């Protein structure tokens, strides 16, 4: 171990070797991992290899975007939420209503849904700034339940319990018509998932993303290195709401229907479960979790239509017993093995 050879805070005379190693270490953080390439290649390959499975693939892509958006607040800022579907549902209704009354072009609907959900995220973010995890769980749960009841009561607008139907999105950007088999729908959702994940990935490796993890890791110390925690949480929560709203919009547009179920409590619980399965704090956990959760749900509901919820519950218990930390890290074993040659340690 080296001794201190010079007084602190004098002009740095760090060896160039140390500086370049530091630069390499920092770059290494944001390098593209092996599993990232696998995910996107597999998603495209699925389009060609599984032409009859477009609906479930679309479902996975939508759930993945929803889960990745939750990871931004849960895995980065450490904010637990049981009401994330408030934004998903609002986005779905906005996209549905827009298509029904004004513009049926999907990308327009997607953006408007994202913006309006983002506004709701911004307004409600101030409610989650105070209190402990438990308070936040209750507050977010409350917001979710209120949204569901509002949608139910405003039947003149939302169709109430019957849901919102009678709209059909036109060609995407006027170019790509939705087809009967859902192929366009899948590619559309996949494209939005890709762009959304890349945007959130950029955020994850920015100073902002690092500061979110600092707030989650040690809020007291984060304050002591001048991180304005409340402001950062408000921004992260708003961004997460935008993408959750977009995920909701995708569901409305690809199914041409908005069921009151988009605001149901179980959706908030499902998306949390997805992150528990896939792991938090690295975004792709939302994607892995969505694939696993959707496939297992689909499989269980076929082999045991009445009791599949039981097995989902059992799975959750087993996952938690195995240990959350190990779960959150399982995928890290993969890239380490593939990136040994980069060295740096």
């Amino acid at each position, binding site marked *: 171990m080296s001794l201190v050879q010079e007084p602190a805070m004098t002009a740095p005379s*760090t060896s160039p070797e140390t500086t370049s190693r530091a630069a390499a270490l920092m770059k290494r953080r944001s390098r593209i991992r092996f599993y990232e390439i696998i995910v996107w290649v597999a998603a495209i390959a699925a389009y060609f290899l599984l032409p009859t499975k477009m609906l479930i693939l679309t479902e996975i892509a939508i759930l993945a975007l929803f889960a990745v958006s939750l990871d931004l607040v849960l895995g980065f800022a450490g904010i637990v939420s049981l009401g994330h579907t408030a934004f998903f549902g609002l986005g779905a209704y906005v996209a549905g209503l827009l298509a029904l009354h004004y513009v049926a072009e999907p990308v327009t609907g997607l953006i408007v849904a994202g913006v309006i959900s983002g506004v709701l995220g911004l307004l409600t973010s101030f409610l989650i700034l105070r209190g402990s995890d438990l308070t936040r769980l209750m507050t977010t749960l409350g917001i979710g339940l209120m949204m569901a009841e509002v949608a139910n009561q405003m039947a003149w607008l939302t169709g109430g319990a019957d849901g919102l139907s009678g709209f059909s999105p036109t060609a995407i950007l006027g170019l790509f018509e939705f087809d009967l088999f859902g192929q366009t729908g899948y590619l559309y959702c996949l494209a939005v998932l890709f762009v959304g994940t890349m945007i959130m990935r950029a955020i994850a490796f920015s100073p902002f993303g690092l500061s979110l993890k600092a707030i989650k890791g040690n809020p007291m110390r984060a304050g*002591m290195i*001048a991180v304005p925690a409340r402001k950062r949480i408000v921004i992260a929560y708003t961004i997460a709401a935008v993408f959750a709203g977009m995920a909701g919009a995708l569901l409305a547009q690809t199914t041409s229907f908005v069921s009151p179920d988009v605001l149901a409590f179980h959706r908030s619980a499902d998306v949390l479960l997805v992150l528990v399965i896939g792991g938090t704090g690295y975004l792709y956990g939302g994607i892995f979790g969505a694939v696993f959760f959707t496939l297992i749900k689909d499989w269980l509901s076929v082999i045991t239509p009445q009791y599949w919820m039981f097995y989902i519950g059992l799975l959750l218990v087993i996952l938690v017993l195995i240990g959350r930390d190990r779960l959150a890290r399982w995928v890290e074993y993969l890239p380490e093995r593939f990136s040994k040659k980069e060295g740096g340690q």
Partner: protein
Amino acid sequence: MSEIVLETRNLKRRFGAFLATNDVSLKVERGARHALIGPNGAGKTTLINLLTGVLPPSEGQVLLEGEDITSLASFKRVKRGLTRTFQINQLFNEFTPLETVALAIAEREGVGHNLFKSISSYSKITDEAASLLAQFGLASVMGERTTILPYGKQRLLEIALAFASKPRVLLLDEPAAGVPEDERHEVLQIVSDLPADVTVLLIEHDMDLVFSFADRISVLVAGAVFTEGTVAEISSDPRVKAVYLGENA
């Protein structure tokens, strides 16, 4: 020429019926090496928490460079040049030392809100972080996860992290606490090499360190300032000895 940079006026903090800080009026001069000593439970750490905004005071004021900062959040005080280290390490376990320090520098430089630019693309920040870590003898471990570092190294990172914010007033809460004997000299060296223009308020139990480092000492007993003076005055004060011996007896 004595300019007061940090001052408290009749500062009080209650925890229920317990008065942890009892009417403390303290003045710290610019560039001072001011030590805060006192037996366990005297309220030293509470006072630091009040100074840095970790706790709000029940009564009284805190002034930094003449301005009332009593109701300012911690991060705003850091922005104004007041920062601290913690008695028990408060680090980011998931981070490497390099990431930890780089983030602190990014926040100091006001780029912490940047959403889309990778932190690795700020080469000046990385360079500064590397050189700061090298000064603290942490260059060899800068890519390790903080949580697996030896305690002494974590302790050095604790201080390096406070430095990354370039404080004008630095509060050190028992910097050598818990550091094994063979790593202790590194910490002590860093403390004694602190630049002269940085005002330092040091909490320490190690009297050798206090007497060699400080030019002024305040003795805190039961939440109140018991006495204050130069090193010579305090070290020869029989009442101070009694306070310490009384505690140990």
